[in-house]
């Protein structure tokens, strides 16, 4: 994480990939304990990753990373449960099925998809090109006739407003 904060993209990707299973465990435990739906696990994971990214400045670099990470993950799990308070579905069997069927795959998340579709057209295109197709900022810039810097700013704004949508009252 320290390397990533210094701007090392490869280190950052490794870190995010490495913490994802851990985040998934926390999300699963939190949802299970509170009687949330197992289909929300990946929502919580992605919401947490987004928060880890946007709030990485709140990690005290002199402290170990795990307690901070756990705090973010728990906060996001509770947040999701509260947001979905209206529809609590609890079924142990389906829980077990789900966990067996999808042992930590990178499932698609409904919530993040919804937040994505709420963005304005250009921001959505940028996120889709960069995230789904893995294009670089300069490629996207050339395609959309924007400067590389403008693409970066638009991407950052898009991620922020997705996070805001996710933590809003009810989507």
């Amino acid at each position, binding site marked *: 994480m320290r390397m990533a904060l210094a701007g090392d993209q490869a280190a950052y990707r490794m870190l995010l990939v490495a913490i994802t299973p851990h985040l998934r465990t926390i999300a699963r435990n939190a949802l299970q304990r509170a009687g949330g739906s197992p289909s929300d696990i990946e929502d919580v994971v992605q919401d947490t990753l987004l928060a880890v990214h946007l709030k990485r400045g709140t990690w005290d670099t002199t*402290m170990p990373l795990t307690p*901070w990470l*756990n705090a973010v993950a728990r906060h996001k799990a509770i947040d999701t449960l509260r947001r979905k308070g209206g529809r609590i579905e609890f079924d142990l069997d389906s829980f077990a099925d789900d966990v067996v069927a999808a042992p930590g795959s990178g499932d698609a998340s409904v919530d993040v998809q919804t937040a*994505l579709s709420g963005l304005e057209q250009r921001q959505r295109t940028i996120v889709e090109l960069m995230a789904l197709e893995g294009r670089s900022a300069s490629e996207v810039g050339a395609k959309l006739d924007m400067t590389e810097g403008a693409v970066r700013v638009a991407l950052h704004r898009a991620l922020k407003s997705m996070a805001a949508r996710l933590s809003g009252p009810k989507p």
Partner: protein
Amino acid sequence: MKTEQLIGALVADLDTPVSDVKSRLRRLLPWSALIVAVSFLSVFGLRGDVATTGLVPVLGKVTLGLVVATLGLVAAVHLSRPDRPAAAARRVLFLVPMMAAMVVAADFLLSGSPQWSMRLFGKSFIACLTIIPLLAALPLGVVLWSLRDGATPAPATAGALAGFASAGIAIVVYGLYCIEDALPFVATWYVLASCFVAVAGAVAGRVLLRW
């Protein structure tokens, strides 16, 4: 969207600088305090005797304001990280009101009761209760806005602490103008006004400091 794809987007966004609570506060809060002080005092003026008989009470009020502001600010910044326990910060909320209540009680026991209610109510407690929250509004906005860069585990508590931080600034400014010096007056109405600001901060914090 798949999780790996999201990670791709996050990695692409790594170069964006992270804004942090402290640097934003350092940049904006002094200005907001200055704006409030200059605009209020240029209209209403300093109290006339500030250099003579009023010096000691003014210094007392400024000290009270600085203490309230510092306590609120330090605790609010402390609580802007997700892995910080909220319980200790929550206790800070009760510190100033409790100290004020003790001062009022001690003053009641020491002075006779007939003159005491005059010392308590003075002539301008309503002005005090309205002006301090008004003066605190701009700093409160600045503190809350800066705290949005943080990730607090307890939005309402953090908002209330922001309220005390900005009320402290308002006390310093108002203390340079207000001529009521009785101890129970200051302890009751200044602190009660701060509590109003803290409640407003808590309500705003619940919405603004979610993440």
